[in-house]
């Protein structure tokens, strides 16, 4: 077995890369939510002076990337790789932003799991000595996602209680080989799990088995249980998906309920009429970058497990009656180098 592999799905990073800087940009509704004060930029309106929603999302992506680079006192040409993606067809947001940024670029698609997918690969690139600086950026936008996956915005439809609300937001993380906490110490890569859920208004149920499977694999591979973490954070399971994940893991003998939060539940208040909670590539990016990392710096949390969760569907697969496969990738963030 490869030297630093632990079990079937996890690697331990021998020279753990650090998160050198970060930036978060969110839309108006997210700014009005309970975490509003933690984000770097809150937009006045979600169009941001652009002609289309897509252009606005692309600008959010670019600006978040630039902010993260500037905050670390670096230039775009210092960055070895840009990794990232978004929810739009052919990941146009990330591709078009990469055109402007001019950093060598790997475009990734893992639906809403793209954040930890990017950070997993970025951390491994640095650990292996292939890069000094890797920028990981993901974004999503309520209006671009709605028109691609569902109905026009002004269409009068009723959403069921399990429907999610796509987060308008972009988060950028600059990883480096410096010695400055927090560090990424472990990477657990998820498998695609499908329990046959076909309801596109129930993403939480589609993704919960994938989240539970990755958490279980991480515990088994590292030989540690929930007690080794101050917090376990999932990306966008929402209220219902969170409950399902707790139940699924209880069946496997792990109780994580006392230290388990979901970014989709944290970003909005229940009064904001978002039904099951937030979702999208931007959801875990802005909650992790804005809120959770701040709390880690303040010393509230020392070691956390972050999982972004993705529902791997398309409008074509849904119309053809296919079920919704889910995926979740986990990374351990630690204030110590381990």
């Amino acid at each position, binding site marked *: 077995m490869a030297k630093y592999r632990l079990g079937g799905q996890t690697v331990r990073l021998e020279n753990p890369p650090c998160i050198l800087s970060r930036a978060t940009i969110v839309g108006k509704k997210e700014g009005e939510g309970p975490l509003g004060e933690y984000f770097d930029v809150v937009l006045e309106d979600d169009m941001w002076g652009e002609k*289309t929603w897509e252009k606005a999302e692309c600008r959010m992506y670019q600006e978040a990337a630039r902010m993260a680079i500037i905050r670390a006192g670096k230039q775009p040409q210092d960055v070895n790789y840009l990794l990232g993606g978004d929810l739009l067809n052919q990941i146009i947001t990330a591709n078009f932003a990469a055109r402007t940024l001019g950093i060598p670029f790997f475009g990734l698609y893992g639906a809403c799991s793209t954040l930890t997918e990017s950070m997993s690969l970025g951390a491994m690139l640095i650990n292996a000595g292939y890069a000094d600086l890797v920028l990981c950026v993901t974004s999503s936008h309520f209006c671009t996602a709605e028109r691609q996956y569902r109905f026009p*915005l*002004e*269409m*009068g*439809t009723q*959403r069921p209680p399990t429907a999610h609300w796509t987060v308008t937001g972009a988060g950028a993380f600059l990883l480096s080989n410096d010695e400055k906490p927090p560090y990424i110490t472990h990477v657990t890569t998820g498998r695609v799990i499908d329990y046959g859920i076909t309801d596109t208004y129930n993403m939480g149920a589609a993704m919960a088995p994938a989240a539970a499977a990755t958490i279980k694999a991480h515990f088994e591979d590292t030989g540690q249980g929930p007690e080794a973490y101050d917090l376990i954070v999932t990306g966008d399971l929402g209220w*219902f998906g969170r409950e399902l994940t707790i139940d699924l893991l209880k069946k496997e003998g792990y109780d994580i309920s006392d230290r388990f939060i979901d970014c989709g539940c944290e970003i909005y208040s229940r009064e904001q009429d978002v039904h*099951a909670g937030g979702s999208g590539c931007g959801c875990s990016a802005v909650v992790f970058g804005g809120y959770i990392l701040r709390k880690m710096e303040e010393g509230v949390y020392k070691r956390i497990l972050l999982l972004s969760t993705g529902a791997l569907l398309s409008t074509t697969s849904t119309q053809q009656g296919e079920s919704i496969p889910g995926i979740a990738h986990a990374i351990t963030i630690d204030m110590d180098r381990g």
Partner: protein
Amino acid sequence: MDVKQQKLNKEYQEYVQRKMPKSYLLRDCVLAFLVGGTICTIGQAVSNFGKSYFNLNTEEASAFTAIVMIFIGALLTGLGVYDDIGKYGGAGSVVPITGFANSIVSPAMEFKKEGYVFGVGSKLFSIAGPVLVYGISTSVLVGLIYFFVK
């Protein structure tokens, strides 16, 4: 798919169905009744107005009512109000003719950015299209049956 996985899937799906937060059926029905009823009452008032004020006969009055109600539906969609009515009204705001106007105007607004041909032109009936196809098909079918049975 192997039998074991099928069994697991079935168990999970049943479990999800059991645990899933349900829509408030009674509340939604009452709201749909009230919103739909209100729209239809307004329609009736428009019809009565046409009959008494413009001296329209029944057939003319229904055309007049359809024109006015479609205009109101389109206007409220453009003002960004109809989607809020739809959120509470559900089927009550979808079924009347104002809902039909909403289903055509909302994609027209949304896809204008893709141009007048491939945006507005091709997406205009993306939601109303199926209604038209099956509505017209059904009327042709019923017409044929009526023709032969008569």
